[in-house]
């Protein structure tokens, strides 16, 4: 027993120590259970979310843009199904063979092949490479025929922007194309919805209304593995098409404008004189916006860029021209309003006027003799208007002109390229040129030359505001939520009020002091077109249904030297660049007028010879479509 004592003692030590360890074990296991509990029960939601984040990935698909329609509901910017060709590299057996086959079938360039190879190296093998964005139908059929031999190739149908009227609306709508990095970052909505291959508005209303047109992405949810490969599709969430936007424009008239200005550089604007609706707004020459959708080729781009008639310039909104004689109605109105002249006031035109040793010429060398306001307007006598503006002074003239919208943007909030032009006064010259105003400058301002610069749309609006009896209108190109019908607009004007959409109240929008003065100017414009010796008499329409009143203008682009004046060259003998711009502003029908227009033909010679005949052709169409336009109900309400 004594012998075995140490053995027993040793066993005791072992057991005691085991007991301590056993207790420690329980504590440690309890700790692990606690940790499991905290991860799996307490924080389960958090980790479940993280796990879903791991395994579920969303793929955004490009949103479908909203349509843009004209006043009659014709789609002018729509969406078209296009056929694309994708390659999924991981499914391809022999990549080089496939490329060779595709090269022959689609006539791909070597550069394109290089691009595809580069993309293949950059992308994951299960990401598709877009070989062609826009297959023609015959190419699509060809590919489908050989599909058995083209393993890894996927013909895909997708949607792309389309402009069915091609160049007709380019300067109104602009176009869409793939955005660059800066453009994505600039617009938060685009940034959020951007997916490769998506196109955004680059110009015009497409750009301005981007956030309304863009639409929302369709979303596909996939389960992916740790390497990002899609395992299976979980959900497909449909996107919403962007807003449909209705414009005030009339495609028939817009197209006619394009036809009338074919081969010429210039612009036509047509406006409803009561509602301010822009019926047409065409800048010539134009170009086909569809060319930009899939990236324009270098050759085509150079052709547009280097065209001497400058198709890229929106002449209606950002072309600045001297208004020439088309300013004369405003000069006359200003003089009448300020009681500088009356209808009996006469000036003797000898063909020129001397002032401080400087000679100011009338366009008619022999002179017009004694002319009253009506005759001066009819025959566009420069001497009469030199004298009237001398008496009136530039500041009072400027006051009237600015009231009628000169020197201010017409549609500024919609087109950032719009220019505001310039109507000078003494203060402007002092501030900007640092020199005092010279009386001679007043004289040439009175015939629309010199510092004065205006856009075609400004001249159109000016004419519309004379035509409607002298009331301010707010031109618009988008049919908004509560469009005022023309009757409502006209009635409120006759009461001397105009409905203001911004403040939603009727406001006094009179631009005149005495209604009589407007009438005098209107009559003078009528005689200019419809009476013998009128400058646009040859372009008149006698049928009172279409009869219109207007004023021609011929804007010099350079000073006429004495020698040139003596030579009296024919238009064809003058170099194109030196020829005068031809202008014409008009409104009609003369009884119960509805529409105003302005026409500018760059280097067209004279207003009466080149611009006024265009108005004659156009007015018939505009008035013929008047009833149709009236009947058109406001079928859709949108909020912009």
């Amino acid at each position, binding site marked *: 027993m004594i012998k075995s004592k140490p053995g027993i003692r040793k066993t005791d030590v072992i057991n005691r120590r085991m007991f301590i*360890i056993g207790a420690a074990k329980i504590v440690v296991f309890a700790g692990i259970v606690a940790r499991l509990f905290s991860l799996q*029960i307490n924080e*389960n939601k958090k*980790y*479940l979310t*993280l796990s879903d984040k791991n395994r579920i990935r969303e793929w955004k698909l490009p949103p479908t843009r909203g349509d843009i329609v004209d006043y009659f509901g014709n789609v002018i910017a729509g969406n078209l199904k296009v056929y694309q060709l994708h390659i999924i590299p991981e499914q391809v057996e022999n990549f080089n063979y496939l490329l060779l086959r595709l090269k022959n079938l689609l006539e791909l360039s070597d550069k394109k092949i290089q691009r595809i190879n580069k993309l293949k190296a950059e992308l994951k093998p299960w990401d598709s490479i877009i070989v062609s964005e826009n297959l023609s139908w015959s190419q699509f059929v060809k590919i489908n025929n050989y599909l058995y031999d083209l393993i890894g190739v996927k013909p895909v149908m997708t949607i792309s922007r389309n402009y069915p009227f091609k160049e007709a609306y380019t300067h109104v709508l602009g176009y869409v194309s793939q955005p660059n990095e800066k453009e994505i970052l600039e617009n938060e909505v685009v940034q959020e919805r951007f997916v490769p291959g998506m196109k955004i508005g680059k110009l015009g209303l497409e750009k301005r209304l981007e956030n309304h047109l863009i639409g929302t992405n369709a979303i596909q949810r996939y389960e992916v593995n740790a390497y990002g490969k899609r395992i299976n599709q979980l959900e497909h969430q449909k996107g919403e098409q962007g807003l449909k936007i209705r414009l005030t424009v009339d495609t028939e008239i817009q197209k006619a404008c394009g036809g009338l200005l074919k081969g010429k550089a210039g612009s036509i604007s047509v406006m409803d004189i009561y509602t301010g609706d822009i019926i047409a707004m065409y800048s010539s020459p134009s170009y086909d916006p569809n060319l930009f959708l899939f990236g324009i080729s270098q050759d085509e781009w150079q052709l547009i860029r280097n065209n001497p008639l400058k198709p890229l310039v929106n002449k209606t909104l950002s072309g600045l021209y001297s208004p020439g004689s088309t300013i004369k109605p405003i000069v006359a109105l200003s003089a009448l309003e300020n009681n500088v002249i009356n209808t009996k006031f006469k000036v003797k035109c000898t063909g020129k006027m001397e002032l401080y040793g400087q000679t100011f010429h009338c366009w008619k060398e022999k002179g017009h003799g004694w002319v009253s306001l009506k005759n001066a307007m009819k025959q566009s006598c420069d001497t009469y208007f030199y004298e009237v503006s001398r008496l009136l002074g530039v500041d009072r003239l400027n006051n009237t002109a600015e009231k009628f919208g000169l020197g201010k943007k017409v549609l500024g909030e919609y087109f950032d390229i719009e220019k505001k032009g310039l109507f000078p006064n003494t203060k402007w010259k002092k501030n900007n040129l640092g020199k005092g105003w010279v009386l001679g400058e007043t004289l040439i301002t009175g015939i629309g030359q010199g510092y004065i610069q205006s856009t075609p749309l400004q001249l159109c609006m000016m004419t519309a505001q004379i035509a409607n009896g002298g009331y301010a209108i707010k031109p618009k190109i988008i049919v908004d939520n509560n469009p005022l019908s023309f009757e409502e607009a006209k009635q409120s004007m006759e009461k001397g009020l105009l409905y203001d959409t911004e403040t939603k109240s009727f406001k006094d929008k009179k631009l005149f002091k005495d209604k009589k003065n407007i009438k005098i100017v209107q009559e003078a414009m009528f005689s200019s077109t419809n009476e013998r010796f009128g400058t646009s008499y040859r372009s008149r329409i006698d049928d009172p249904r279409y009869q219109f009143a207007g004023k021609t203008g011929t804007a010099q682009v350079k000073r006429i030297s004495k020698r040139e004046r003596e030579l009296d060259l024919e238009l064809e003998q003058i170099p194109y660049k030196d020829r005068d711009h031809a202008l014409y502003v008009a409104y009609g029908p003369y009884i119960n007028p509805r529409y105003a227009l302005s026409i500018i033909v760059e280097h067209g010679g004279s207003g009466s010879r080149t611009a006024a005949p265009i108005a004659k052709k156009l007015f018939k169409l505009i008035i013929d479509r008047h009833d149709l336009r009236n009947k058109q109900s406001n079928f859709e309400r949108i909020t912009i």
Partner: protein
Amino acid sequence: MFQNDRLNNEITLFEKIKNLDYILVTSVILLSIVSVFVMYSTDGGEILFHTKNHFVKLSVFFPLMIFIAFFNLKFWHNFSYVFYFLVILLLIWVSFFGIKSSGSQRWLDAYLFVLQPSELMKVAIILCLAKYYHRLKIENVNSLTSIVVVLSIILVPIIFVISQPDLGTSILIASSGLIILWLGGVKIKYFIYSFIAFLISLPFIISFLKPYQKLRILTFLDPDRDPLGAGYQIIQSKIAIGSGGFEGKGFLKGTQSYLDFLPEKHTDFIFTLFSEEFGFIGSIGLLLLYSIIIFRIIRIGSISRSNFARLFCFGYAFAIFIYIVVNLSMVLGLLPIVGSPLPIMSYGGSSMLATMIGFGIVLSAKINHKQIIS
């Protein structure tokens, strides 16, 4: 006593089978079945390489465990030092002729299978030290010579294993060895002093660590510092376990492992997959199964009459406990990542072999629990 001795020596095969610890054997069988199913899940719900191999290993090593159990405990007592030296020889062999894989040299090519001797050392050191303390008189436990001897027994294999390099296994070997020292009766103050000394020298130890080991410690302290690199494993493991929730995602439905977000899901992170698919309930069940195994081993130790058996059982129970704790703490983000398999569950032949040898010796101790070893 004499009677007993004689009885023990004349124990028949039938009695041996009768005296097997059926609770332990059943638990091991249960654990094996679970491990095969989990391995089937790691293979994506198909019987592929890992499932097949794991099953084959189980069907070889489980009979081996029973075979070992039928040896007389005295044989294991006598064989202890030899076993230890054999494993040391294998470790030396590995350091010269071992197979290199991902920067470390741990494996031997044994033609039929690949052996990792450091795993065997986890059992050998317990066996060796159990015998040493069994023979050591209690008066000499705290003598300088005995302390030096046991520390050398522990340090020699550790030096080989650490130079492979394999920090995880060396820590497990060290803790298996130290626990026998503790059980053997080495003064508690020595443990306290060495622990303090360890804390003080920790900065120096860290400066000797390999860059990837330092990175693991940094990553453990803040897994989010490199979520796609060093911290990836631990973050994904926590996501998998946490997203399992109470009931789990269901067998074969663990998205984290199916979609390959889980690293090393067959080996060190097998518990992560299990816990993702079977949830909190499953994890507690598995822990319970392990607890039963540990408890049974302790129970066998406490009924053993020889201190050799007692020391081995207690030591081995603790070793199993440590393997589980280190592995679970690692996958739960409580410890830095050190390679350590989960016994039986993890894929790996050497680990399973060592575990089964240990169980076999424990079972042998049960059969021969009345035996006294002089």
